């Protein structure tokens, strides 16, 4: 306790000095400095209150002789009083100083001094609006009656001034000076969470000045971003998107915030994933190619970091789907602007992949799947020979549109004929992109064998778990520690279990009793089930009913630590703003020669105040 109060005393000194410097927040620099320190100061006030409430007034004056000065100066600073809960905490601190039964005149004077300060806080700066004050007094109104109306009128008039700038164009007289807009954005920093200020915040975010530089204060963006993520302010989508376009760190923070929610320890079903992604407004914002590329990049980093964890994969696929829906709503087609969104994808491949044929009957799936398989194979083989981009580039593209893999698996399970090599290759590539040629061929053969055995089972009627184990195949004698079957085989088995009526009856038992096929895992990765079954609506209820803790699917970690090449590192901070028709606000393309591999937990947003984001790793 003594040590704490010792710290507090020195903090007191520090803040007292700061406050004296800020005086009444009169100059630009003091305003800036004040805004920077607001959260820390509030934290300090909270600590002070915790300490003060345990003591009586005399002890307080002994331990913290400067507390009166500190509180008095705080009350003179409108920025501090306007911020969040600071005014409440100051009031609490002041109440701690009151003597219940003043023994001496000094104590009485202290009491009245405290009361005076309290009143000052509660009816602040009334003398400013003198005419208004006199008027309202005569009419019999109190500040509590008319402050909300006054605030609303002031905000509305500022909003209409800001909006007029758009309409007036060249009418320089009515235009708001840039310094004034900057100053307004600075005032908004402590007041972002006040509901009355929402129209002003929105107007500032959607305000476009006439010069090339950004006029809004960077801290304003940070404050809005923080308030938005914590749901302390409600803004329309257009304002939020404008925020992200103008301030890159807030976009990154929003994406990381979404990742945190998606990849937490608790189980997230697909519907919830979709809800979370849609609520974040990121798919809508991604209709701007620059935003899409940033978010895509972050997904890529997450996938690399977690070696292709199913949750991340599932989230990417849901995000892509929501993004395509949003594009359609804006009457844009991906194929017309493919280069803008996926600049490094070969156009024919990207075009074909992005057009998932939801309405085609399964009988017509083979042709497009074979086409995709062929294109991918060509791309991968070209990439493997020398270029610095690896096959993972193509895999990442395919990963966006995981529905194709689901279709391929279903087709394989349904058909009676021999499995086409193209489909086997596609699935093998999807589940193990890092395999070399010979290894992949072996996987394909193994998968073919499993399919053959499953086909034999399906005619038989009653099945048992042992049958399934037999179908999975023998454990490889050369490598007893390796799991009995790779992810592809597991996928086929699961597809079989869920796809046939006989399979469904034994599914739960089969999965529980075959740990080497379906490894038990304490973390239930939600996205695992998304790789089972195509993403069509009628399949969903069946799939979700199987989300039981016993039945799990996990992509085992890649045995190699081979590094995955990236085409670029994390996007560089926004340096320039491009005006023009599309109103793209910054350029961010960087093609550095050699960048260290980014780590999602640290590198994306360097000054993240929170501890590193811990995403599930490949190996527990």
């Amino acid at each position: 306790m003594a040590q704490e109060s010792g710290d507090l005393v020195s903090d007191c000194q520090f803040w007292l000095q700061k406050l004296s410097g800020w005086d009444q927040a009169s100059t630009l620099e003091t305003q800036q400095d004040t805004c920077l320190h607001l959260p820390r100061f509030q934290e300090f006030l909270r600590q002070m209150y915790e300490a003060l409430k345990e003591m009586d007034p005399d002890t307080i004056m002994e331990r913290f002789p400067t507390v009166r000065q500190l509180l008095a100066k705080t009350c003179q600073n409108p920025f501090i009083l306007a911020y969040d809960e600071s005014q409440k905490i100051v009031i609490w601190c002041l109440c701690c100083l009151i003597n219940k039964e003043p023994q001496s005149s000094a104590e009485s004077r202290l009491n009245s001094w405290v009361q005076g300060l309290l009143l000052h806080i509660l009816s602040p700066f009334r003398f400013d609006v003198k005419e208004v004050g006199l008027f309202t007094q005569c009419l019999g109104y109190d500040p509590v009656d008319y402050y909300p109306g006054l605030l609303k009128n002031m905000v509305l008039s500022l909003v209409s001034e800001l909006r007029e700038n758009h309409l007036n164009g060249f009418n320089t007289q009515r235009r708001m000076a840039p310094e004034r807009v900057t100053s307004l954005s600075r005032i908004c920093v402590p007041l972002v969470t006040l509901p009355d200020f929402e129209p002003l915040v929105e107007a500032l975010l959607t305000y476009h000045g006439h010069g090339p530089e950004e006029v809004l204060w960077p801290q304003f963006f940070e404050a809005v971003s923080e308030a938005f993520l914590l749901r302390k302010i409600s803004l329309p989508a257009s304002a939020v998107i404008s925020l992200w376009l103008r301030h890159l760190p807030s976009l990154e923070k929003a994406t990381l915030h979404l990742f945190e929610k998606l990849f937490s320890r608790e189980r997230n079903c697909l519907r919830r994933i979709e809800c979370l992604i849609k609520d974040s407004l990121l798919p809508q914002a991604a209709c701007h190619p620059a935003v899409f590329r940033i978010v895509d990049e972050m997904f890529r980093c997450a996938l690399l970091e977690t070696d292709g964890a199913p949750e991340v994969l599932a989230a990417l696929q849901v995000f892509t789907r929501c993004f395509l829906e949003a594009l359609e709503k804006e009457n844009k087609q991906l194929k017309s602007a493919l280069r803008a969104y996926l600049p490094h994808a070969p156009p024919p491949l990207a075009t074909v992949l992005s057009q998932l044929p939801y309405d085609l009957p399964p009988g017509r799936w083979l042709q497009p799947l074979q086409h995709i398989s062929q294109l991918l194979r060509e791309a991968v083989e070209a990439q493997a020979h020398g270029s610095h981009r690896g096959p993972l580039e193509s895999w990442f593209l395919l990963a966006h549109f995981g529905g194709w893999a689901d279709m391929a698996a279903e087709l394989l399970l349904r058909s009676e004929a021999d499995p086409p090599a193209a489909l086997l290759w596609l699935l093998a590539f999807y589940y193990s992109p890092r395999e070399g040629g010979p290894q992949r061929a072996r996987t394909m053969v193994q998968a073919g064998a499993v399919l053959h055995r499953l086909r034999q089972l399906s005619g038989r009627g009653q099945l048992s778990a042992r049958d399934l184990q037999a179908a999975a195949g023998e454990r490889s004698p050369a490598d007893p520690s390796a799991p009995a079957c790779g992810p592809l085989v597991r996928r086929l088995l699961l597809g079989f279990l869920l796809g046939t009526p006989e399979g469904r009856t034994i599914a739960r038992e089969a999965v529980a009793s075959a740990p080497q096929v379906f490894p038990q895992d304490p973390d239930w990765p939600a996205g695992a089930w998304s790789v089972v079954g195509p993403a069509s609506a009628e399949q969903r209820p069946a799939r979700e009913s199987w989300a039981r803790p016993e039945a799990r699917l996990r992509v085992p970690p890649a045995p190699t630590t081979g590094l995955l090449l990236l085409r670029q590192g994390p996007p560089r901070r926004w340096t320039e703003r491009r005006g023009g028709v599309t109103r793209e606000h910054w350029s961010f393309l960087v093609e550095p020669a050699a960048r260290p591999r980014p780590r999602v937990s640290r590198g994306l947003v360097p000054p993240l105040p929170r501890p590193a984001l811990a995403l599930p790793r490949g190996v527990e």
Partner: protein
Amino acid sequence: MDPLLQHLERFSEVLAVSRTPHVSTWDQATVRRALQWARYLHHVYQRFCSHESIRTTLERRLHSLRKEGGLGAGPVPELTNFEALAHCDILLSLRLLKNPALGNAACHYLLQQLFPGQGVPDADGETLQDGLASLARRGSAVHMLRFYGYRENPNLQEDSLMKTQAELLLERLQEVGKAEAGDPGKFLCSLWERLPQKNFLKVVAVALLEPPLSPRSQGEELELGSPQILREGSQELVHWLLGKSEIMGAFCRNVPAGLLTLVAGRHPVLSHAYLSVLTDWSRHLYYDLQKGVWVGAESQDVPWQELYTRFQSLCQAPPPLKDEVLTALKSYKAQDGDFEVPGLSIWTDLLLALQSSA
């Protein structure tokens, strides 16, 4: 219903007393009870604010609490409308805090009740503590906007401070009008005597322009209620302005030309009066041959420049008003002899100046 109405009356008296030295007799129990009453009325507000009929009854009773003769005669009634119930607890708390006569123990108790500290949940949303903190926060916001973001709008009718005052004035007028023994005219006269006149007249002018007719602001809702009521309030103001010639004269003198033109355009009755005032002013000027300008005989006469500015503003108004003014000017010029030469008739000179600037 009756008990509720009685409670309203009693609490109104409590509020009135909370400002006086009588609170020195209050002890902790009294303070507690007063706060409980305030909280109770706050609940009443929340429950009935959407109940049209109950709300009207309560409002009527509150209006009838006004003493005879409006504000000028008796003390200001504390709870004047239903909206006031929403924050009667904050009102009471602030008044008690401000009152130096409140005893030490009672004051200490009051502070404990008002600011109990962290983590005290209340069943119905915002606690009194949150309400007071919110008031403080809004006050700081107003200050910051005023000091760092506010520019007085040259169009006074769009200026936020003016608009707020105008809205408050119209709201009060509406209540006075609804009260049984209410006399808006007398109310306005009392305000006229007590307030700085220039500002008051400007507020009246802005109030005469509510609700704004421009298409852009039609989407904005005023808190006051239907446009019908606002028009009634405007009528009262017009009536009062036309009542005494000195008021109308001061009105025309102190309100800026542009604003006055808008008001005249909106209220044709006022435009006639305005025109006659201007005519009267013009007749006071005579032509000084040496200086070659029109000057007034006495110091309080309106100078030529101002007269000209006002006429110019009127001639830039939309048609009915503009035509009326020009017709009047031309007829006065004809009455004077229809001279074309400057220096003989003020009407000629005005028309010449207006035409040359047009």
